[in-house]
């Protein structure tokens, strides 16, 4: 069995002030380099689960380990650094700082993480070469690289976000419904590029969507309501 990039054990999480559990997950494990498709209807706790995996939230009970370390063992500032060193994040939309150029958006993780910068430089010789590699890899023409991010179309912006998530080869890429703002053709193109890029970077990918048609392209698909014992719709998915 491959080494795990993250492991969840006996996780129980409730939002502060709420008496009912939001998530109650016995176990979830993703191996290094694995691609996981997480799906479920809105409100089933997908985004909360991602926040727990990324160490933005801490569970009241149980453990969430990323790359061998329990988030709960680290103080907040340490968690921030640990996260940017190991996790690339892609949102549904509005991923970029609109006023920065495409190039600088991609470089942002290297500014906050020495690990990511060193890894990028080590792999491609320089930051600029790493940016070029990943933007090229996401099929973005070099004429766009120095334009402000706001000038790009939604589809192009998502690809820039993917390039940014992958620069410096983080061990885990988390994509929170990154294709929901794209039409079908672009969705497939984006997915192709993202999956092959994660393979190149050797990054594990946790991809969240409610669109089951894309599930087959991942090594594994998990329905959140199925593993979440706190979910109301548990039986419907069983």
């Amino acid at each position: 069995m491959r080494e795990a990039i993250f492991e969840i054990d006996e996780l129980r999480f409730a939002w502060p002030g709420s008496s009912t559990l939001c998530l109650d997950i016995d176990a979830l494990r993703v191996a290094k380099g694995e691609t996981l498709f997480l799906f479920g209807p809105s409100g089933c706790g997908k985004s909360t689960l991602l926040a727990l995996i990324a160490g933005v939230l801490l569970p009241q009970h149980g453990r969430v380990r990323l790359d061998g370390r329990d988030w709960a063992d680290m103080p907040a500032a340490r968690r921030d650094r640990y996260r940017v060193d190991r996790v690339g994040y892609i949102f549904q939309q509005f991923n970029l700082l609109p006023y920065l150029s495409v190039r600088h958006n991609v470089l942002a993780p290297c500014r906050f993480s020495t690990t990511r910068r060193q890894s990028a430089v080590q792999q491609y010789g320089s930051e600029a070469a790493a940016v070029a590699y990943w933007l090229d890899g996401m099929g973005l023409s070099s004429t766009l690289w120095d334009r402000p991010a706001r000038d790009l179309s939604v589809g192009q912006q998502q690809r820039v976000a993917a390039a940014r998530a992958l620069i410096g080869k983080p061990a885990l890429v988390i994509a929170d419904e990154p294709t929901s703002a794209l039409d079908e053709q672009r969705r497939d193109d984006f997915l192709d590029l993202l999956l092959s890029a994660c393979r190149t970077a050797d990054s594990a990918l946790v991809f969240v969507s409610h669109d089951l048609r894309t599930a087959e392209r991942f090594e594994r698909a998990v329905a959140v309501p199925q593993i979440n014992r706190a979910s109301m719709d548990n039986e419907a998915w069983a």
Partner: protein
Amino acid sequence: MIRFLWTLAWHSAWNRRFTLALTMGSIALSTFMLLGAERIRTDIRDSFTSAVSGTDLIVGARTGSVQLLLYAVFHVGAATNNIRWSTVQALASQRGVRWIIPLSLGDSHRGFPVLGTTTDYFKHFRYGERQSLRIAQGLPLSDLFDAMLGAEVAARLGYQPGDRIVLSHGSGELDLSQHADKPFVVRGILAPTGTPVDRTVHISLQAMEALHVDWIAGMPLRGQHTDAKELRQMDLTPRAVTAVLVGLESRSGVFSAQRTINTFSAEPLMAILPGVALDELWDVIGMGEKALMLMSALVALVSLAGLVSVVMAGLNERRRELAVLRAVGASPWDVLILLMIEGAMVTIGGVLLGIVGLAIAATVLGPWLQSRFGLTLDLAHPTDLQWQLLVSLVMAGCLASLVPGWRAYRLSLSDGLSPRS
């Protein structure tokens, strides 16, 4: 990384340049007000204290020292008692006295005070940095009915040398009792000084005496009239004067000279040191200046409050931006620093803008201020207080941006990577 935060702050601020420019404008305005008020205050004080210099003592009948200063130097108010001419002569011959300038006040010309004095006035009187009076137009006083106008009197009333003017008894604007029978000729006009000299009509002591030959207790004597020709034959030695400016051989003798005068036996006199009395007077009228500073400080406070509220109001729209920053690795502390940098940039920008604005205003308005108020703005030499004001403005701006910074810190903690928007 700090450099990257600066780049971020700059680009992000540029992205919102219109709202931030408004805030910057209001900070510029308060800088302008604070520095301008302090400048004007200092320069008013300077021009105020420059009203008399080189005079060691001012001597008058016993009264308050501020009162004596007011009428002897600023020609405001009236003396309760005069000094006899014999006393003036005694003063002149007192040991250590180099010169005296007798001053006789009480008449006016269309609201401007008339000062009767001797030619020593034009020789010994000093203002500002020991500058002496200079005749800009015309000639020194020579005839009995000659008048020498201050620059402002001539400019306001449009007089030229050779014009005839009529003086009035008393100091009112209303010319109720005129010395119409004894008109004066404008002989010369003094160069502007920025002191009360500019607003004064100067005549000789003899002329002052001549004007009042037929007067007793402020009224012309009924049925008695001495005409100008007869007057020239009369002995016009003044009977009394209002005050005397005294210059000493050496400054070190000033206290003993003052003591001698204060204990003068023939009539009760008092001698004051102009500098001390000016300070006393400034303490009284300095209240207005403090109010001005307070107003400016309030304006500064309001603009900083504006800075806080503008940045705060913008924060909600920037939650997405903050979340993106968090996602690429910025910690909540980085977010706080980012907001601080932004506040500092806006404040420093505003302060610089205010300084430039003040420099432009001073250049454009300088000549007008000088001619209208006799005020010279000296921008080249910032006062200590001006520096302190600048530093505290910038510091207050940075502190003020802690408020939105803290809120952004809290927001990015609670939002994590996915703002609830």
